[in-house]
């Protein structure tokens, strides 16, 4: 039986269970007119039955589908002739693959002999049996569960509380998905990074001043020191981030101040959505804006002033990234300014402050924690930003603080390391995961710092 059919059947059973549960609760007290004698509304008894009908059955189905493929393969392998069972892991995997392909009618590598044919038939047979067994078990458990719940229904059964308990568990499960995913991502990056650090010492990665991952993939150069030093990447990232923030923070902050305190309602109604459009432009578009428009302009302007400017300068990438972050800064700062109680504003105005005195001496200090938190969030956004720097920053890992030179960033290197066909056990590829881990740790620390800062000072103004 197909899984979809099974699920549809389960759904139908749930509807029936609801109806029976509900009507039994009413029947027990003698009709809808006396439903006040029930502990919960009749519908809750219906849902109670549905929960007992569905949850055990679905749990079994999930477990079954998780373990079924392995069990089926194990059965098939155990039925193979001795010669095949002596195979090494790799060969056996290939064989099992072939059996599965043959069973589902796909192309098979090598000759199809009688052993393979027999195994494939056996595979199909076991799979079908498994499906049938699953269907019977699932429907049976659903029926049993529903009956059990149906029999337990009594006027004083606290069906409402039980159903709400189940809903609570569902909510917990839903919210843990995001958390578990984060943990999973961290772990996957962590394990790859550990593999990297088995090949390259941690100290070299953290303190090495040279980054040239290309040379290390050749067998005769493995271990040549100095090629996996991440310092130039992090300085490059910091340089571009610093440029971006020095654009985004003043402009974003001034925008927020203007919009929150000075602009007319009309102006605000126009400017706010426009800023949000800026936030909605895909970063790849910013990327070619940086590479094709800003970078040549920066180079010409620099040359006009007598500087030597690389065509992929840190300045161009940083400027465009800063523009991209303006809406983030301005909207977070706007929130922080709006969160300052209007009593502060009134108090300052009542003492005879001008608007700007009110702003600079009272509102901004009061909103500062929120603004700083917002800026830190913006910094972690800038550090993690990829597309703009991939397109507009260079690939040369220069250790420099000169914004006119080309620098490269952590994210750019991760992209270049992983683009294209790669072997996943060379230090070069694994370096991407180590970089990713570092990047994750840095932005995590910034976020924690930002949130702590916001929390520490927030309570003062409530």
């Amino acid at each position, binding site marked *: 039986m197909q899984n979809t059919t099974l699920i549809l059947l389960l759904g139908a059973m749930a509807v029936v269970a609801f109806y029976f549960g509900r009507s039994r609760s009413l029947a027990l007290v003698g009709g809808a007119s006396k439903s006040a004698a029930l502990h919960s509304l009749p519908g809750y008894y219906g849902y109670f039955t549905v929960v007992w009908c569905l949850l055990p059955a679905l749990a079994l189905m999930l477990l079954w589908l998780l373990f079924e493929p392995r069990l089926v393969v194990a059965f098939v392998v155990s039925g193979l002739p001795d010669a095949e069972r002596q195979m090494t892991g790799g060969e056996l995997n290939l064989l099992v693959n072939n059996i599965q392909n043959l069973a589902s009618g796909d192309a098979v590598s090598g000759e199809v002999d009688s052993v393979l044919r027999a195994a494939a038939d056996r595979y199909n047979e076991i799979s079908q049996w498994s499906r049938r067994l699953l269907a019977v078990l699932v429907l049976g458990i659903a029926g049993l569960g529903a009956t059990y719940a149906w029999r337990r229904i009594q006027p004083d059964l606290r069906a409402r509380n039980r159903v709400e308990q189940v809903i609570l568990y569902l909510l917990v499960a839903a919210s843990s998905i995001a958390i578990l995913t984060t943990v999973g991502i961290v772990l996957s990056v962590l394990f790859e990074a550990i593999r990297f650090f088995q090949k390259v010492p941690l100290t070299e990665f953290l303190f090495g001043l040279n980054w040239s991952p290309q040379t290390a993939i050749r067998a005769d150069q493995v271990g040549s020191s100095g090629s996996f030093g991440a310092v130039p990447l992090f300085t490059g990232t910091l340089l571009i981030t610093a440029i971006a923030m020095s654009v985004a923070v003043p402009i974003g902050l001034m925008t927020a101040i203007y919009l929150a305190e000075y602009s007319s309602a009309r102006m605000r109604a126009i400017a706010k959505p426009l800023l949000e459009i800026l936030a909605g432009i895909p970063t790849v578009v910013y990327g070619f804006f940086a590479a094709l428009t800003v970078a040549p302009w920066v180079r010409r302007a620099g040359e006009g002033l007598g500087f030597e400017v690389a065509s992929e300068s840190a300045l161009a990438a940083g400027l465009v990234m800063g523009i991209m972050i303006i809406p983030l800064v301005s909207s977070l700062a706007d929130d922080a300014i709006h969160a300052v109680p209007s009593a*502060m504003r*009134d108090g*300052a*105005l009542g*003492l*005879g402050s001008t608007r700007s005195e009110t702003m600079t*001496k009272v509102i901004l*200090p*009061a909103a500062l924690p929120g603004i700083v938190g917002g800026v830190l969030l913006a910094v972690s956004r800038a550090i993690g930003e990829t597309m703009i720097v991939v397109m507009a920053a260079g690939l040369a890992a220069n250790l420099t603080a000169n914004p006119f030179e080309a620098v490269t960033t952590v994210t750019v290197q991760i992209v270049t390391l992983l683009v294209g066909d790669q072997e996943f056990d060379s230090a070069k590829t694994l370096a991407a995961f180590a970089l990713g881990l570092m990047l994750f740790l840095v932005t995590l620390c910034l976020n924690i710092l930002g949130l702590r800062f916001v929390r520490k000072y927030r309570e003062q103004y409530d």
Partner: protein
Amino acid sequence: MTMAAMSELDVNKEPPVSPAPVEEPVDTTRKPDARSPHRPVSGQLTELLDETVGNVHCDDPFMTARDVNVYYGDNHAIRNVNLEIGKKEVIALIGPSGCGKSTFLRCLNRMNDSIDTARVTGDIRLDGMDIYSKELDPVALRARVGMVFQKANPFPKSIYDNVAYGPRIHGLAADRAELDNIVHTSLERAGLLQEVKDRLDEPGTGLSGGQQQRLCIARTIAVNPEVILMDEPCSALDPIATARIEDLMDELSEDYAIVIVTHSMQQAARVSKRVAYFHLGLLVEVDETDRIFTNPQHKLTEDYITGRIG
């Protein structure tokens, strides 16, 4: 409502008279009252109150309001209010919620300017100077007419900086010593110095509610205003803190004109020399405090102070 309660109500032929919300004029005037069968109904209220009863004038007027009207958009919040506020007197504005007393108060230092839809007409003068004239800078006006708010709103700064804020922005102190002096004097006059003199560097938001309100008063008098407006300054305070602030008002009235909005008639009776009763945007009655509370001229005033409305 449960069934039982409903049936109880049905039996009760006359529903219990509960204090009606005063924003609805119909309720306040329609209530049956055996002693005055010819009470005015809402439509006639405006005509009946062409003239404010009592005496809007005072001996030594410092602020004068003439034919003041305030509109919030289409809402006519204050109608034809005339009032004089004397030098060195405490005048209390009382009345039910939404009667316009706070609105009138905020006209006196142009705090209504910050509300886009608010429009003020009429003539308000401070010491003979039209405070709504085009040439007048509202910022300078507010330094002369200080304000204390309903909820204590100390700035998120140290106690010292809170009081020093006004003198600093107005450049009242030439050097640090002078500023120290102003801060100490103001705190002392606000009756707060003894409690905070050892912790002037601590944030003003860490003080208790009553202390915060006195800090706000100290902050206001540090600018050396001529008039102090107080918008229900004690409504969030306990009786002890309230008593301290009332004592303080008494002392301050030797130097300043104080206009206080209050919901507490006892407070009005305790602190003020004159009382103005507002009702639905109209100034109903103004008189000496004693006269208002012992012998009110207008029926609405009498109803309010005897607790029949509001």
